[in-house]
């Protein structure tokens, strides 16, 4: 009687509904967990009033958001202003279509109820192209707000996203050479087949991906588009009520997507040394891996100060992109010569250590002497080379 449920399209609709519901629940509880964890790291309590340990805080927030007024400022371009958040959220949700959340229910046998919505054979290209559409939501929203803060915030966001997109794509290409497929399911299977997680063969690629991924989703320490001290709230300044929370949802769902790609590409996705053969356990394994990355995002936010904008751009183009090119060349050489995987692993680790030492030396030795004129003589002091003092030219008043 219930045979019609087993048709692929019905299964696709039901799985889509489950994924959307799960992502939104994850978003709601991520906001709570983030506030609690950041509070703990800063020696505060965090929200703990609504329910035991603040469990119902997301519900309270949602109810508050629903009954908030949604203001459209008079200077805003109304149509684009209202469409932009929708683009952001739809794009963020649909990037999740190709992520394999778990093993098929019978190991090695595919069925319509596998926990992946569509195993598109160009999986990672789907995610990269869809997530680069996210920049439209931000740029259009910031431009249409009719506010200078919003405009500058959205421009920053666009420039930052395009700068790190290149490094991100190249960092992933090393893994693709080892896997030999673009399908996300295929990449997990390649790791099971080789018996390693690709982080062992691609440590440099993993670190580059992680940094570029954090910059892609505009999270601290790369959250320049929302830098409160400089731009109020960046592209979010004029948004209120549900439209504001739709942008927040998009940001957190993008974080979850970036974490899932990191888990799938470099940490074996849902596989865990044979444990994934037990049906259902593979989903738990995948969720744990994603949760570890999400915790890392929160931890970084609480630990690192915000990077300066010109340094952010320089970092992306002058360090991240060249290193990603080097990583691609190393991986290509190893795969072409049929060398074992640990050679590229060791080479990647060596490059990471070399770069860290180089940066450390630059900080420690890169000091210059400047003479500062003061009242009653001048004094010499040592400052880091990265500090540039403003020079004022003499103005002749006649």
């Amino acid at each position: 009687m219930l045979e019609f449920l087993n048709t692929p399209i019905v299964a696709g609709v039901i799985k889509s509904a489950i994924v959307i519901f799960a992502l939104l629940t994850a978003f709601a509880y991520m906001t709570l967990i983030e506030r609690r964890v950041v509070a703990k790291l800063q020696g505060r309590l965090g929200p703990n009033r609504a329910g035991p340990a603040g469990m119902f805080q997301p519900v309270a927030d949602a109810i508050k958001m629903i009954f908030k007024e949604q203001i459209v400022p008079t200077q805003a371009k109304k149509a684009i202003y209202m469409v932009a958040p929708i683009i952001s959220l739809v794009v963020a949700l649909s990037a999740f279509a190709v992520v394999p959340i778990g093993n098929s229910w019978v190991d090695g046998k595919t069925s319509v109820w596998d926990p992946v919505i569509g195993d598109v054979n160009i999986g990672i290209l789907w995610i990269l192209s869809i997530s680069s559409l996210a920049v439209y939501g931000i740029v259009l929203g910031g431009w249409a707000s009719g506010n200078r803060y919003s405009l500058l915030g959205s421009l920053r966001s666009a420039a930052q996203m395009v700068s790190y997109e290149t490094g991100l794509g190249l960092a992933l290409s090393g893994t693709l050479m080892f896997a030999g497929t673009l399908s996300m399911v295929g990449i997990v299977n390649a790791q099971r087949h080789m018996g390693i997680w690709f982080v062992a063969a691609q440590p440099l690629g993993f670190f580059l991906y992680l940094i570029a991924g954090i910059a892609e989703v505009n999270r601290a320490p790369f959250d320049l588009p929302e830098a409160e001290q400089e731009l109020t709230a960046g592209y979010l300044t004029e948004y209120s009520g549900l439209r504001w929370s739709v942008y927040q949802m998009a940001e957190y769902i993008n974080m979850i997507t970036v974490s899932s790609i990191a888990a799938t590409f470099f940490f074996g996705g849902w596989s865990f040394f044979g444990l994934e053969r037990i049906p259902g356990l593979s989903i738990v394994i995948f969720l744990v891996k994603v949760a570890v990355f999400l915790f890392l995002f929160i931890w970084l936010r609480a630990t690192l100060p915000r990077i300066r904008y010109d340094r952010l751009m320089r970092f992306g183009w002058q360090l991240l992109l060249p290193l990603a090119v080097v990583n691609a060349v190393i991986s290509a050489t190893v795969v072409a010569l049929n060398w074992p995987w640990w050679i590229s692993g060791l080479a990647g680790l060596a490059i990471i250590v070399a770069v860290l030492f180089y940066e450390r030396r630059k900080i420690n030795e890169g000091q210059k002497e400047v003479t500062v004129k003061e009242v009653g003589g001048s004094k010499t002091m040592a400052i880091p080379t990265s500090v540039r003092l403003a020079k004022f030219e003499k103005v002749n008043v006649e």
Partner: protein
Amino acid sequence: MINPAYLYAGILLAAGFIFVIVTMTLVSFLSPHKRTKEKLQTYESGETPIGSAWVQYPLGFYIFALLFVAFDVDIVFIISWAVVFKKLSFFGFFEILIFITVLALGLAYAWRKGVIRWI
């Protein structure tokens, strides 16, 4: 015959779209609409905004967009090459080395010109 997986991925796209539209429509009925002149004013930290919001911005943004277009096309090429890499063997390997050299030269040129220094 296209892969049916695209259809399922499209289902999620459509489902996400429907979900967002329905939620926003419902909430627009629930949320209050009390407009005042001050509330609808552009926010500029309490000041009355002067002039248009669409100000001139640094040319740097434009140059980064140009650089991005050049490099992103290259990366699309490299990713598709990386998949069939094992079948191409040494011919593909040397070809991509030449390609990456050209890419690196372009980056070095932009670097030398001071384009990617931002200020």
